């Protein structure tokens, strides 16, 4: 019997998700023996054209990481959707838009002006900006069209399963792969990670006082965080209460608070709003002035609460005004 054809492909991505696949170590050899990998740009030499020649549905599984920000990424996402029986959104960028989704807090013009003109390290006397079509020495060259914003994968195509994380840890990758190979997949649309919040499995949870309350917010470089005590109990922003479990506490284990790469808990649309709600209930402040004093300490809430999820958030839907480079710099 022919081995099931499988794709591992990146869109707008850093390569960390591909590395997470390699981090399966020896298990990867078993996977490679069980499936026929027909596209994996970072590791194997197949081109997009070979996928275009395939029949619709010929690929059993496409594991897609990265977000969509340009026309080529959209084309590849749609091509893989057409040719694949199953599409797995792999990693925070594909699931939620990811860290590069923070770029949605700026406009496309802001990004181009800064990156190609205004940044202090740029030397661009002719003011050249990338063009979708350009002519050099009489030759026509093309680039993908850069979109106005970053999109999560399910903004562009129908996604069957989600595996969050930045990157997804190796054991959850193996779980997902085995579920496909053994045909033990949960209902379509499922996120292949626990439904509870990170706090529910966090080893620091037992150190949390019965009534958690914080009087001030402290930044991670301002205190020497106790490695066994709940970060929030120490006044340090930790997104554990609003973040889906399943990461294996990789950050906690090296004494760093959660930044939410697994996205919202099952049934919650927006983890940032969820966290603010949790935060409001643990704030130890009586007067409006006391509340304002703590809130003022919470610098860059968008960067903390939507580190991995601006494109998928309600923040995106309300679209943060027209913030210019100048305003951001002045702040």
């Amino acid at each position, binding site marked *: 019997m022919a081995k099931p054809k499988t794709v591992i492909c990146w869109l707008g991505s850093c390569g960390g998700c591909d590395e997470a696949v390699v981090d399966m170590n020896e298990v990867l050899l078993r996977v490679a023996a069980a499936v026929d990998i027909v596209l994996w*740009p970072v590791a194997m030499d197949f081109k997009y054209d070979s996928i275009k020649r395939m029949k619709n549905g010929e690929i059993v599984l496409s594991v897609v990481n990265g977000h969509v920000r340009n026309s080529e990424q959209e084309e590849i996402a749609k091509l893989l959707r057409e040719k694949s029986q199953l599409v797995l959104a792999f990693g925070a960028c594909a699931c939620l838009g990811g860290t590069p989704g923070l770029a949605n807090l700026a406009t496309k013009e802001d990004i181009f002006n800064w990156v190609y003109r205004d940044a202090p390290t740029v030397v661009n006397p002719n003011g050249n900006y990338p063009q979708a079509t350009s002519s050099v020495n009489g030759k026509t060259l093309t680039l993908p069209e850069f979109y106005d914003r970053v999109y999560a994968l399910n903004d562009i195509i129908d996604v069957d399963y989600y595996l969050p994380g930045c990157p997804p840890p190796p054991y959850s990758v193996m779980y997902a792969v085995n579920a496909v190979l053994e045909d033990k997949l949960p209902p379509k649309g499922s996120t292949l990670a626990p439904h509870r919040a990170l706090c529910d499995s966090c080893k620091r949870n037992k150190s949390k006082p019965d009534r958690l309350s914080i009087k001030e917010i402290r930044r*991670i470089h301002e205190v020497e965080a106790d490695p066994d005590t709940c970060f929030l109990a120490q006044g340090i922003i930790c997104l554990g209460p609003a973040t889906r479990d399943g990461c*294996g506490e990789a950050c906690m284990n090296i004494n760093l608070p959660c*930044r939410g790469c697994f996205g919202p808990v099952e049934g919650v649309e927006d983890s940032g709003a969820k966290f603010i709600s949790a935060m409001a209930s643990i704030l130890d402040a009586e007067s409006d002035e006391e509340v304002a004093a703590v809130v003022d300490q919470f610098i860059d809430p968008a960067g903390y609460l939507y580190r991995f999820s601006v494109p998928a958030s309600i923040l995106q839907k309300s679209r943060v005004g027209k913030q210019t480079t100048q305003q951001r710099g002045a702040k």
Partner: protein
Amino acid sequence: MSKQITINPITRLEGHGKIEIFLDDKGNVEDAYWQVVELRGFEIFCLGRPVEELPRIMPTSVAFVQLPITWHP
């Protein structure tokens, strides 16, 4: 008859690129261009973020240099 060869994507490296090769009538390489087909804008969205958070933001520009967080305990 001149000919154009497109290599897309460039494979087995971290990064997104394509190569356009232009051949002349005799089939010799007349011109070749390597293009980076991606921009994410780390240069701008790091501005205004708390500096102590940057070691957790910047590694996602290229995860092969991901230093502060590792899945290998």
